């Protein structure tokens, strides 16, 4: 926490960097003012898109001392109001997993090249972004820590596989390349507590470092203060503390 008489500043702006296949995509970058070196985090946005909550979360990470980058994972679908772009992507069955992994790993490379970063980069995401963060931590070696916040469809049956999501992320668990934090709600339907337990069993069997926390009286999206039905203040406050403790341990 910054002392009341200390200088404090933040820079937050849209940037462009090479994502999957070197294609330039937009991202929202927030960073503390100063020379650093600061640890960094890539944020994988949720299914509703590159929206206000994600930009707030990106600035929150910067307030806590991270250079935070939230790529527009729907950038190739075009531009307009975030909800219109999200609806378009929804009608297309989402974005391809390999493309998202390339965008997130490209974000890590972009962050490491900045003169004010420390070289340590984490990845985090909520909802579909939690699933994407986990995939990126398994399918690349770009990250030093991964936080999966209620990512659904890490465990997938054959019937759930689609051309955009051809492999269940749990099947990549052997390849997880960094410590994992998972935050989940007991009332969630995607992932269910049973699916979280299945994921936990796979991590244990593979000998991977992880910590999972299952919150009672919370469902999907319990951090989302702009969603009164989903928001759980007590669980969210504790979840943010656990997230910062985890990143502090592995990226600090």
């Amino acid at each position, binding site marked *: 926490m910054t002392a009341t008489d200390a200088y404090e500043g933040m820079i937050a702006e849209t940037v462009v960097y090479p994502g999957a296949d070197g294609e330039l995509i937009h991202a929202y970058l927030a960073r503390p003012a100063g020379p650093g070196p600061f640890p960094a985090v890539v944020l994988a946005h*949720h299914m509703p898109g590159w929206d206000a909550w994600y930009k707030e979360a990106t600035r929150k990470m910067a307030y806590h001392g991270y250079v935070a980058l939230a790529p527009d994972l729907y950038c190739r679908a075009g531009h307009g109001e975030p909800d219109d772009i999200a609806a378009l992507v929804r009608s297309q069955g989402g974005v391809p997993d390999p493309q998202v992994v390339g965008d997130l790993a490209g974000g890590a490379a972009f962050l490491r090249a900045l003169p004010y970063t420390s070289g340590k980069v984490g990845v985090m995401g909520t909802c579909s972004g939690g699933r994407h963060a986990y995939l990126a931590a398994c399918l690349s070696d770009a990250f030093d820590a991964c936080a999966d916040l209620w990512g659904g469809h890490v465990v997938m049956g054959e019937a759930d596989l689609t051309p955009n999501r051809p492999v269940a992320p749990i099947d990549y668990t052997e390849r997880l390349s960094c410590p994992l934090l998972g935050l989940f709600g007991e009332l969630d339907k995607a992932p269910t507590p049973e699916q979280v337990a299945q994921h936990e069993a796979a991590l244990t069997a593979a000998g991977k470092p992880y910590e999972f926390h299952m919150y009672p009286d919370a469902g999907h999206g319990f951090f989302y203060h702009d969603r009164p039905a989903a928001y759980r203040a007590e669980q969210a406050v504790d979840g943010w503390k656990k997230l910062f403790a985890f990143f502090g341990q592995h990226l600090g």
Partner: protein
Amino acid sequence: MCTNINAQAAIAGSGKAGGQWMQLDTAHIAYDHPLHSDYEHALMIDFVNGGAGFGSRIALELSLEAAERLAAVIGEAVRQARAYEDGR
């Protein structure tokens, strides 16, 4: 996306939004996280004119119960309409 409940239908007709009528050619239907409504999941229908893009879509986000009531009423109205047309 988060549920894999996703479908679309070719339609013919028109719709009005923002004081303007437009031709519609596709309805995209999904049950997933809504973009506006305060539900964990909603039945969403986007009525689209493909040429105009999603920025001018007519969007609905309904609770599952509301969608069930609407589907039942539409189904019954369509049944009656078909009987009317076939009986002429």
